[in-house]
């Protein structure tokens, strides 16, 4: 167990976090980079996949095509895509920029299928009768989408985002092999230096980050799911006064 303790000691050593420490330190910078990459690529993927998923889920059009394409995209090996796109970008851009841009594009592509699947399957899971009733009551298609379908599909939509973000966190780690920063850099440095303590420290940090982010998503997902189910019961009585005539 000594090597684990060594790794923890390395992580909690203030020197590892001090500004100006030599690469791959300081750890704080790597952590922030990792979060930035995750936010950028998951955000970009959401911008593409959510509207598309809502369109498919609401209209039912293109469904088969998209299921096929996203299924194929899911089967792509992350590392292969990463190197391929980084190399393609390398022909057009300076090396350092190419690594970042290429990796971010690859991470975005990898995050799309989960988000897309969450969005359209979430909308499809909404009871047809509820939608029919909303339409018969005179909601416009946009009102049905934003006031009925998306709120009711929220747990599954967030589930898709959760899977995508975790995949990006994991894949961003191996992106350091293609020249990206982030916590993966700690691991690659450890490998280059043949220093197991550093390798393990990097791995532990990535794991901790993934668990924390996953936990946050789990909480949000739980909150959205229970809003109108079990959790509503306790809130119901308390809010009678709030809805009653003042």
């Amino acid at each position, binding site marked *: 167990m000594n090597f684990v303790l060594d790794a923890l000691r390395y992580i909690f050593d203030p020197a590892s976090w001090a500004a100006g420490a030599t690469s791959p330190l300081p750890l704080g910078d790597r952590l922030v980079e990792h979060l930035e990459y995750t936010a950028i690529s998951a955000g970009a993927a959401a911008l593409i996949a959510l509207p598309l998923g809502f369109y498919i889920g609401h209209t039912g059009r293109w469904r088969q095509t998209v299921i096929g394409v996203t299924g194929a995209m899911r089967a792509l090996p992350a590392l292969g895509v990463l190197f391929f796109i980084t190399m393609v970008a390398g022909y057009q851009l300076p090396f350092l920029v190419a690594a970042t841009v290429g990796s971010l594009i690859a991470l975005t592509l990898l995050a799309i299928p989960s988000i897309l699947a969450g969005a359209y399957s979430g909308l499809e899971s909404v*009871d047809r*009768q*509820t939608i*029919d*009733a*909303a*339409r*018969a*009551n*005179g*909601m*416009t298609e946009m*009102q049905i989408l934003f006031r*009925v379908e998306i*709120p*009711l599909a929220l747990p599954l939509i967030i589930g898709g985002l959760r899977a995508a973000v975790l995949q990006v966190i994991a894949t961003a780690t191996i992106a350091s092999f293609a020249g990206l920063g982030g916590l993966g850099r700690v691991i690659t440095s450890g490998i280059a230096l043949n220093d197991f303590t550093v390798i393990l420290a990097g791995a532990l940090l990535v794991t901790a980050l993934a668990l924390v982010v996953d936990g946050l998503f789990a909480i949000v997902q739980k909150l959205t799911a229970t*809003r*109108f*189910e079990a959790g*509503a*019961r306790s809130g*119901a*009585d308390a*809010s*009678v006064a*709030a*809805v*009653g*005539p*003042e």
Partner: protein
Amino acid sequence: MIEFRSVTKKFPDGTVAVDDFSLTMPSHETTVLVGSSGCGKTTILRMINRMVEPTSGQILIDDVDVSGQDKVGLRRSIGYVLQAAGLLPHRRVVDNVATVPMLNGTPKKDAREAALGLLDKVGLDRSLGARYPRQLSGGQQQRVGVARALASDPNILLMDEPFGAVDPIVRADLQAELTRLQKELGKTIVFVTHDIDEAFALADQVVIFRKGGRIAQQGTPAEILANPADEFVETFIGADRGRRRLRVRDSTEDGGPAGGPQVLVDGDGRVAGVLDERGPTR
């Protein structure tokens, strides 16, 4: 007044749900469309608020063709009650009832207050307003569905087998409630059901359907019971089985004293009730 003029509906798969259908549904009256499943009655109902578009023919509300009207506006001006109530599960009961007024721009506070008033009207306790639909019984959900349909005070109320999913006791309750409400409100109600007893209980005008949206007979419940048009109608209303043919059996036949209450029996000799010669008690 709702008027169907030779309306035909053919679905893309080739089934003709409604074929050359013409009917007038008078204002402030309850018209009940009754028939077995697949006879096109729901399709006819849904063409009134353009949830289904006719293939040919015209539907007019107070002499205005609905096909020229904005779908969304039309639907907001017509109350609609569905079988499973179709409430929005993520919104509290008050907000469900207030749906249409809020879509029409009524401020939230006013719409909610009006919604609580409507809960009174349909016989629900105001405290249920803060609950979610899931926390209500089937019968209560249906009442909320009726309250929602009434929220924008529409002239027309469309009801698609609204009491089909509740047990017989609750159903009788809801029917009585609707009769009471209708006395008070005088809406133009179009009600779809497959239950002939429900039809007779609620209707001013009953329309009995065969397959393909063809009318087998239309008239008041009394007219239909007195003169079933053909064998199909007889079977449908149960006249062929003697269920509707009641006769008085003298109380002495049952060993009671002469001049006691007279028992009514149906064509098969089953007891249906007693004859009350004092007339309606009310």
